[in-house]
């Protein structure tokens, strides 16, 4: 493998924010051994940081220390390096030491985003969920636009079975990134779990609307649902059943129940059948097709 291709791979991983630590480590090590990071200018230092993180991830702390030394020599007093050192500390030291380290930095610079987030993650990891939530809420109160933070909060709430709170956190995520169907799907599933089926079905349908292939009617009926659209159709199907089973379900968010429930159910059934009927790349039948067919065939109520 040449140096050039290794660097290119690193750059791609960096651009896509992929956590392919093993591969990054292999490629990065190659570059490090030829000691050419320094000659690369700004790009080289970012790659070196990437390698440091990857080697902590795969447990090669010796390489990580080597990288950190190089970076710290070049950029003394950089907050970004402080964060890296903290991550390295988390890898081996007890969490209290890392927390102490982060607390010290935050005392000097109370609005240091990276360090604050690390601190919250350590708190959560060590089981101090309540404290982590408090800190995270405070963090989001200051940095409202941090989507990652809101997602983390939603995840923490969901892990504590507080799905209403989780949905509230997700609603902020939706406000911040209204174009991302994956978050809508997550919100829909959260609503479903918290028994708010009318809300859930509308959000599932929103996902369908956002992700289905084309807007022209003719093509739509022939097209096969793919990816998260299939998952959304499953959600729709689940919701129609739940709503049909107990007619007077209350929706916490006061969402009106969907009209034409039978039609929706029919459509979802049809779509799911289409999704599982199409032959795959090699012409084989989709996995679990029979199970899906029997499941969708069971009548509404």
């Amino acid at each position, binding site marked *: 493998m040449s140096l050039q291709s290794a660097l290119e791979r690193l750059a791609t991983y960096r651009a896509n924010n992929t956590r392919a630590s093993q591969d990054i480590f292999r490629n990065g090590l190659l570059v490090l051994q030829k000691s050419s990071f320094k000659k690369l200018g700004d790009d080289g230092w970012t790659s070196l940081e990437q390698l440091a993180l990857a080697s902590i991830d795969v447990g090669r702390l010796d390489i990580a220390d080597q990288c950190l030394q190089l970076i710290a020599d070049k950029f003394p007093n950089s907050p970004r390096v402080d964060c890296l050192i903290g991550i390295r500390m988390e890898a081996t030291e007890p969490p209290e030491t890392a927390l102490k380290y982060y607390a010290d930095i935050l005392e000097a*610079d*109370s*609005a240091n985003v990276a360090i604050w987030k690390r601190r919250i993650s350590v708190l959560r990891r060590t089981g101090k969920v309540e404290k982590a939530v408090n800190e995270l809420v405070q963090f989001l*109160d*200051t*940095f*409202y*636009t941090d989507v990652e933070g809101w997602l983390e909060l939603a995840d923490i709430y969901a892990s504590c079975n507080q799905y209403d709170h989780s*949905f*509230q956190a997700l*609603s*902020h995520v*939706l*406000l*911040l990134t*209204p174009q991302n169907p994956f978050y*809508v799907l997550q919100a829909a599933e959260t609503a479903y779990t918290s028994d708010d089926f009318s*809300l859930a*079905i*509308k*959000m599932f*349908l*929103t996902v*369908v*609307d956002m992700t*289905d292939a084309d*807007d022209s*009617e003719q093509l*739509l*009926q022939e097209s096969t649902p793919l990816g998260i659209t299939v998952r959304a159709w499953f959600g729709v199907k689940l919701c129609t059943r739940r709503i049909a089973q107990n007619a007077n379900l209350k929706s916490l*968010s*006061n*969402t009106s129940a*969907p*009209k*034409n429930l039978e*039609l*929706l159910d*029919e*459509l979802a059934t049809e*779509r799911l059948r289409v999704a599982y009927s199409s032959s795959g790349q090699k012409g084989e039948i989709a996995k679990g097709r029979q199970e899906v067919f029997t499941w969708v065939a069971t009548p509404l109520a």
Partner: protein
Amino acid sequence: MDRLSLYLDPQIRDWVLFPITLVMILVGILRHYVVILLQSQPKKLSRAATREQRALTRSQVLQATSSNSPIPPSFYKAISQNLSEAYKAGTYLKDGPPNADTQSSAPNPLSDPAAMDGMMAGMKTQMVMMVPQMVIMGWINFFFQGFVLIKLPFPLTLGFKSMLQRGIDTPDMDVRWVSSLSWYFLNFFGLNGLYRLILGGDNAADSSRDMTTSPFAAMGNAQPGQPQDFNKLFKAERDNLEFAEGLHNWVGENMDTKILRKYGKLAAL
């Protein structure tokens, strides 16, 4: 023109024209580095100050999607009204909610140390610009006053006389001759392109640009660390919030019928 009206000593070219140009270029480059040296680190904002500064983005984010909102009405209302209450109560203000009896007045920029810092930085750059230019101009005026330095290779109309022959009061000398003081001004305004070539686009060497800005001009536009009356801004933002709330429309509201129509299960409208 066959009769040569003036003959310039080549020594003038070597010992006056080139040195003036060279000195001005070098001073510009030096100035660039001095300004970099003088630049103070941007002050780190405290947590409360950051929160105050960013509080307005919340309402902006909320309003941006309100007519096509991704979240259902009850959640939207809750967020919007909470925000409105917080703005009213001054929860986001750096120094906590204001007292009822103290009149809110625009803060005096001269009493706020953060604003003073910004002004001092402006003054410092200004000084770095002014002092060397004054010295150079004095130097030229003292040693080379009345020198004719160069002859432009193209003819010009009489209108350029005052521009090119500053410091020489001869009514009938050809406009193509350039005096020392005028050469200084030509360099002063014309070297920017050269600096950009040497130092890159974002340089601080060009002094003619600073002529137009005064250290006090920075006070007008909103700079970070600039005193703003956030309380007033928040109060004003409440109206916008209320307005956006009226416009709120959830994307998913009629999604069921929309999808059914889209897939041909219901007749299109």
